[in-house]
């Protein structure tokens, strides 16, 4: 039996080697995706361009405004003289934020009244806008605090030391600089292997059916189960090689740390690859042409990708969609990937994901193998 499976594996590799398209698909898209996600997929908010209108022209207004550009979060891109210019600026240029200080700002401050900083936000990109608004609040609040202490200092210097002060000290764990690459690069390993393994597995089997060589295999002494092993082991190995390729490029090129136990990751990768093989096998039983396999693959992969937490957090989805994600192997694998890469956690933390993934994989394999055996009978 081993011998027959071995022959089959050799045959698959020879086929892969001679298939120019397959060779291309195995190497170029993974690297390309890694680079694109590494560089283009970013939710960071730095150097946000702002427009500034200062009607007050006072020491205080200048002080407040200079604090914005000082942080590196903002960049004063335009100084406006009046509000009318705003209309043609916000929403029509790449400046999403305008700060306006009205006349009487300094006067209100000196009188002990509340002075107003008006912020006009282009909400089209709600995400950038929200994060930028957070920074604006922080800066304005700091200014406010400093001003209040100063004010008190002038009347009762002795009291200043007693004013209660509280601030929030953020400590981002696992990704201290909140770098987008650290979030996306481990995820790419999951998305690439998913797309790749599902497609090549489904294609390899359907191709044999399409060009009629499946019949030839049927008349050889190989048994159905051996055929399945012979068909899936090569793609398992190919998937594993791609995981290593992307992981190495990701850690060396993008400097994403790998803190966890490689064996834990290997267990996760194995389970995940088995589940993708199951999906590929299942698709192959539903299709008789590669064209159909491609379409079916797309109908599975597209939602699997969107509903995985790869880019869009699952917790932001509506309840029903969140339920759907529990059926998605990629969902669990992404937690395992990020857990081992960034958090450095082990099985004591990742066991729920491992168990769920194993259960899902088991069901997928049982169903697909059963269907596959029936389809070749």
């Amino acid at each position, binding site marked *: 039996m081993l011998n027959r499976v071995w022959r089959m594996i050799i045959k698959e590799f020879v086929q892969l080697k001679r298939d120019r398209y397959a060779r291309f698909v195995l190497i170029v898209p993974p690297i390309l995706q890694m680079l*694109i996600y590494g560089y*283009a*997929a*970013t*939710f*960071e908010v*730095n150097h946000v361009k702002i427009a500034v209108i200062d009607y007050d022209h006072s020491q205080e207004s200048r002080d407040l405004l200079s604090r914005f550009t000082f942080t590196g979060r903002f960049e004063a891109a335009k100084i406006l003289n009046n509000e009318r210019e705003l209309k043609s600026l916000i929403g*029509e240029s790449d400046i999403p934020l305008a700060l306006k200080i009205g006349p009487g700002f300094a006067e209100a401050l000196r009188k002990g009244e*509340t*002075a*107003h*900083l008006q*912020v006009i*936000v282009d*909400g*089209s990109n*709600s*995400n950038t*806008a*929200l*994060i930028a*608004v*957070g*920074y604006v609040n*922080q800066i*304005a*609040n700091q*200014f*406010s605090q400093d*001003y*209040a202490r100063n004010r*008190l200092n002038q009347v009762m210097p002795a*009291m200043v030391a*007693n*004013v*209660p002060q509280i*601030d*929030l*000290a953020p*400590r981002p*764990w*696992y*990704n201290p600089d*909140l*770098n987008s690459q*650290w*979030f996306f690069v481990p995820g790419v390993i999951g998305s690439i292997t998913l797309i790749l393994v599902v497609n090549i597995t489904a294609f390899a089997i359907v191709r044999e059916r399409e060009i009629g060589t499946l019949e030839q295999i049927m008349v050889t002494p190989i048994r159905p189960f051996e055929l399945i092993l012979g068909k899936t082991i090569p793609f398992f190995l190919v998937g594993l090689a791609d995981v290593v390729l992307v992981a190495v490029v990701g850690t060396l090129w993008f400097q994403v740390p790998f803190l966890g136990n490689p064996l834990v990751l290997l267990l996760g990768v194995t389970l995940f690859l088995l589940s993708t093989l199951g999906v590929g096998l299942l698709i192959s039983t539903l299709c008789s042409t*590669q*064209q159909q396999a*491609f379409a079916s693959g797309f109908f599975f992969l*597209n939602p699997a990708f*969107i*509903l995985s937490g790869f880019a*869009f*957090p699952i*917790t*932001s989805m509506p309840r029903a969609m969140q339920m759907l994600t529990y059926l998605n192997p990629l969902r669990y694998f992404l937690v395992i990937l990020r*857990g081992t890469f960034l958090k450095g*956690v082990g099985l004591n*933390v990742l066991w729920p994901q491992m168990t769920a993934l194993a259960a899902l994989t088991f069901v997928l394999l049982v169903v697909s193998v059963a269907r596959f055996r029936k389809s070749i009978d």
Partner: protein
Amino acid sequence: MNLRRTAAIGRKELIQIRRDPRSLLIAVVLPLIQILLLGYGARLDADHIPVYILDQEGSQNSQALLKGFQASPYFDVVKVARNYPELVRAIDADRCKLGIVIPWDFSERLGDGRPVSVQALLDGTDNNSAQLAEGYATAVVDSYANRIQLDWFSRHGLSQQATVPVSVDYRTWFNEDLESKNFIIPGTVALVMALMGALLSSLTIAREWERGTMEQLIASPVTPLEIMIGKLAPYLIIGLLDAISCAAFAVGWFGVPFRGGLGAFFFTTTLFLIVILGIGYMISVATRSQLGASQYALLVTLMPTAMLSGFAFPIDQMPVAIRVVSYVVYSRYYVSALKRIFLGGAGINDLIPEIIAMAIYAAVIAFFATRAFRKQIE
């Protein structure tokens, strides 16, 4: 170019679409699935962020701060942790995204004016959610701090000082409640167009080769230009119908505002479809196999539209090299136009730069597409 012959090719293509269940699926069902998936699945809002709070002091003051988190719509205080290790384990195991540590000397420090730091342990894995959570948490702490300070000033007979010096007033334009669905969904129209247009048009010529009807087509008196226009016109119409249904879905189902001109919407969509269909057609001519054609078409249209168009990832945050590349990505202009039409209320004359860029693109693609196909049997 003969109109009658072109129309005949168009009619043949329409019949082919009607009798091919897969084409129908791509033309009718796929856009719907796609807009539902992205409309519900592609969201970035962070509300009900799970929080653990470790209150090391347990005083009235710390309880008041804790209540601030409980009252915030952005946070769900899952648990008040008993000790630090419990908090660490919760973050490790993804049970919470934020851990707040109120120090044991909280009230004491507040009382004598020594600065107090409330620690926010953030799960930074998902850097975007972490950033949002940090902003919301800062707001909670700042508003608590302001209250405490005003209180302190009044208690010490300094009520003339008991004002917040600067308050920030926000005016948000275009997407007033800063909902991510309004940011994402207009751009999904571009994704749907790219997906559907590329998949359908990439089949046009390849199908004729695969089914062996190409020789008949070549032997018929139609010119290459008539074939191209006749074959692509039905898809342009289908594409426009899909665009209407996507927009209707976005507005009617997801409640995204549509403030701009319908003319601008149709005009930019038509230009975009010309580019997409032209690319799909050229790929179809070049690969001659339906399978290869649809794979390449997806790679060339869907990938850049998803990644480099500003659909979800802001272009201005990308490195310079990628930003330069994005100018070549035609989808960038369409996505920008869509956002401005839906949210900003833009009409045709507000979109001149986008329209010029897309028109140049469409002209170049159309030019090459007309030359791509030759009536020749090898």
